[in-house]
């Protein structure tokens, strides 16, 4: 992570009026604000770690700060064994990756057409997408069930990947087309002069500069589907196809809940994500800065 130090904020931004008392107080205040936020936003992770080592009674006694009397490491072994951790993780990674790629590809193509092509129905298509942007998944469970039954994809990964992609495309198109619209038109004008085709303009000019909003889309897609359970549990039945949220709920029985194991499972579930995210955080922001074209 040390290379991160190199990526300071753009040089013009930091305040330079050093020495002034006011500025020093101001800086202290900023430091306090950011630190408080750091604690409140990061404490849950620490809390979760402690939680995952407690037994049920300690957890349900509901104290906020206490440590477990003796760490329950078996929560983790339970989580891995009974929660089918590795299998579910692999499935989650597969589903999430395919969904992300699908969303990116499909919505980038559509956004490009909507924002750069000269055609009559661009606006109408955009409105169509906007309509679906806020539709709650629960309202579509039943019709989707019937559709999937008829095309015979129930209980396959496809039965969750397809709706995941479909539900993410409106917001993705919204973000990407908004961005692509702001790219100056001279770019493709000169490309056309150079004899580049539409696909090449898309691939070599538009896509590379659209990395930042695509990152945003990735993040949005990720947080919307990584913990998604209602749709997954409705369309998937086979043990071998289930995703991480199933593992979480596998410790919830009719009349009992194994909270410690849930905590352990969530730690294990969040861990790869947190690691990947922090490793990529650098690249994500860099990519965004590099892609700065607006102005």
């Amino acid at each position: 992570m040390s290379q991160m130090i190199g990526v300071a904020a753009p040089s013009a931004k930091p305040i330079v009026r050093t020495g002034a008392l006011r500025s020093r107080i101001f800086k202290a205040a900023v430091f306090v604000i950011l630190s408080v936020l750091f604690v409140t936003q990061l404490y849950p992770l620490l809390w979760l770690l402690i939680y995952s080592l407690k037994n049920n009674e300690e957890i349900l006694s509901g104290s906020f700060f206490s440590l477990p009397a003796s760490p329950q490491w078996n929560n983790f072994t339970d989580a891995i064994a009974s929660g089918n951790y590795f299998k579910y993780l692999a499935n989650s990674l597969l589903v999430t990756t395919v969904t992300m790629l699908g969303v990116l590809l499909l919505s980038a193509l559509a956004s490009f057409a909507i924002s750069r092509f000269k055609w009559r129905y661009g606006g109408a298509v955009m409105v169509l997408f906007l309509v679906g942007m806020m539709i709650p998944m629960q309202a579509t469970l039943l019709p989707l069930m019937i559709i999937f039954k008829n095309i015979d994809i129930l209980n396959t990964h496809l039965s969750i990947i397809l709706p995941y992609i479909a539900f993410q495309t409106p917001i993705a198109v919204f973000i990407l087309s908004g961005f692509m619209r702001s790219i100056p038109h001279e770019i493709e004008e000169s490309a056309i002069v150079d004899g580049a085709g539409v696909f090449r303009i898309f691939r070599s000019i538009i896509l590379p500069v659209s990395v930042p909003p695509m990152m945003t889309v990735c993040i949005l897609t990720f947080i919307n589907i990584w913990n998604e359970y209602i749709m997954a549990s409705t369309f998937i039945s086979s043990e071998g196809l289930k995703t991480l949220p199933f593992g979480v709920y596998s410790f919830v029985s009719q009349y009992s809940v194994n909270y410690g194991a849930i905590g352990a499972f969530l730690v294990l579930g969040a861990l790869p994500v947190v690691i990947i995210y922090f490793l990529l955080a650098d690249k994500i922001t860099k990519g965004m800065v590099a892609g700065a074209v607006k102005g």
Partner: protein
Amino acid sequence: MNVLRVSKWTIAAFVLPCLLLYFCLVFVPILVSFYSGLLDWNGIGESKFVGLANFQKLLFEDAVFWPSVKRTLMFAVFSMAEIPVALFVAILLSRFVKKPNFLVSSYFLPVILSVVIIGQLWKTIYNPASMGGMLNQVLETIGLGDWTRAWLTDPNVAMYALYFVALWQYLGYHTLIQFTGIQNIPSDIYEAARIDGAEGLKADWHITLPMNIPIFKISIVLSFIGSLQAFDMIMVMTGGGPAHATDVISTHMYNMSFLSMKYGYGSAIAAFLVVLCLAATLLVNLVFNRLERKFT
């Protein structure tokens, strides 16, 4: 104006894959839902066409419905009120922190945690002091015993307690979005402003704010979506209770469709929700088109 003139086939190749998938799996189900809203149907057996009876009942007789609409809209208002705060944090981060990535990522963490854990955590905060509730215990310790509340079970405050959890969870999310927006503003603009004598917060007022308008639009749309779909968190924390005091449109819809087994009626609620979403989307677009025209 868009300049690329392309053949119909090219347009189809770009638009159709996305549009078809979306149309079949989001649009068609919603149309089906609209139709189901006209049925008296428990979701399983025979259905009966009743025309607009469900809607009539929903709009004029359902005592739970309008309060839940109000809570949903309040939810949206609160989430939107959070955006300026997120922008402020994002500005602080980009100005005063050498390597902001780590902090931005940290602030973002609550969003990826499962709602099961968020619910447990906040219950240990909101519980009555006698049940180990952290907030009430702290209030008692610092002598503000009068301020203690049954945060999740007092119908007058429970909803606000829930709003707050959502605000907390999504602060980092909006901060991240605003932060990326700020990073995208070319630094030479600030450079130029500095020569004109504008720096610090003044520069933010004249540059960051207007330049970030498209990003606000994204943030606002996202907080709208989040509010209208707020479901999991409410189910885990209060289940819509006590006695409907924390029901929002989506929980009411769930109750009706699947618990009371009035699927037709639940679909009518879904249809209403879609119309509401549409209105919200159009409004947001209208407002921002004006803003963008004014500032760019």
